[in-house]
């Protein structure tokens, strides 16, 4: 039983290690992919750390505390759009 568990653990480790190696080797052997990853990371940083944070707050979430208040605000806008 102990031996069986040991084999299972070993196999699991191997699978995780193999998956890790697969991605690790893949990333290491990239050529144009490296440039693309840099662009992706810069883009995500600009989007989430700058745009989302400073320019795109969620209007209803930021201005109202509860869903009821948000619903009431939208109803007010629907009844009297100004």
């Amino acid at each position: 039983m102990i031996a069986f568990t040991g084999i299972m653990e070993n196999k699991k480790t191997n699978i995780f290690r193999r998956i890790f190696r697969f991605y690790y080797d893949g990333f290491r052997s990239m050529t144009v992919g490296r440039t693309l990853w840099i662009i992706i990371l810069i883009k995500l940083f600009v989007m989430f750390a700058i745009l989302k944070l400073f320019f795109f707050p969620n209007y209803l979430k930021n201005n109202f505390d509860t869903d009821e208040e948000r619903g009431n605000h939208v109803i007010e806008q629907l009844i009297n759009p100004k």
Partner: protein
Amino acid sequence: MTETFDYSLIDWSRAQFALTAMYHWIFVPLTLGLGFIMAIMETIYVRTGDPAWKRITKFWMTIFGINFAIGVATGIILEFEFGTNWSNYSWFVGDIFGAPLAIEGIMAFFLESTFIAVMFFGWNKISKKFHLISTWLVAIGASLSALWILVANAWMQLPVGMKFNPETARNEMANFWEVLLSPMAVSKFLHTISSSYTLAALVVIGISSWFLLKKRHVVFARRSIVVAAVFGLTTSLFTILTGDYSAKVIARHQPMKFAAFEGMYVGQRNAPLIAIGVVSSSPEDPENKNAKDFAFKIEIPNFLSYMAFQDINAFIPGIQDLMDGNEEHDILPVSEKITRGKLAIDALADFKTAKNAGDEEKMLKSRQVLDENFKYFGYGYFVDDPSRLIPNVPVTFYSFHLMVALGMWFLLFFAIVLLLVYKGKIAGSGFWLRIAIVNIPLAYIASQAGWITAEMGRQPWVIQDLMPTLTAVSRLDTNAVITTFILFALIFTTLLIAELKIMFKQIKLGPKPEGGN
């Protein structure tokens, strides 16, 4: 009701959303179509064992990877805008959009992100068959993730399968399948993805033609052209058929948009289709300035009636019929719709007042009035200026006709390319190779024109008949919207330049003996 409203806020918010969506759409269609083209190429490689096909596949995979990497997450900005600039709309549709977008997120993440890594990193590490399955799953996953956002868009054009809850001001999903399988959703998905596949085929043929003109990688280019031309001929035919189906759906559910497609002011039986037309600057009716006359037009008799209803005698309502009503054809005048819309809006106000007062009987009564008139809810905002219910006819007309003309041209082009391939003359036909390169920007123009037709033609609605742009938009400072518009223009233009630079560099390098990631 709307006289105090700042329309420049709507215009800038719309311009910002259009800019973001159009830039996003530069990247999406190539990803959708190229995925399938490279999957077909890899299938040929696995079946034949010919390493030249592996080289071909890997080259197009690199182009796919560049486009995917630059384009990935550009759609997220649209979601930011929903929350910031279109908060009323987001709240109003929340439950309907939630399910499709959540499914899209999960599918995109698991299918694309998982198998895309296997596809790029797995060469020579996993079995050929498993690699091939991964490539197909990337292609299928991309199209499936597009399905959900297109379903959401289709719901805005034809809101079905929901129930409006006046207590929360939200639409709640009543029937998921009705939302997913509405004729608008089916036609929109099929037409959008098939046109995207066509665009990718044109890009592959265009780039391959450049190689042939330069007399470089001739075998690679010829093989790529064969696959792309067969794929493109099939998908462009399918694009035309699904476009025809879309027109039928629009004729039934968005008659004003359909009338704008053809700039038709007065409805008629045996309605002709305008093959070529020049919209005049003068309006047909001084009260409805958006409805323009024609300075010149060439028509195909009866074709519009037949296209829309498979009956040359079918009546196609014009803008005037839809505005003033037409009893013979059971078309309500907008004045009646506005009255009923106003009733619905007032009922919502009464419901809220009754709820605050705890008057259940009045709540029930108001709800009944609201439910009875809800399908005209949005019309209630046009009491002061009903002419705003007419979309911009020249823009809709030209974008629609440009899209259709280019779609027909692409079908003919694929047929010509295949004929040249069959006769063994493709490599020597400099004229057609140059035309193939010109077709690349034309494919993007056609794709963008399709969206302009769909979105400009449905104005002033964000959600057809229920929510116009003026109630959907958040009350922000217009200058803040202008600032983010400029910011986006800069960011997206930088991304586009980066994509083009990297892509041109890779194309110039050409396919490598062992490819590259």
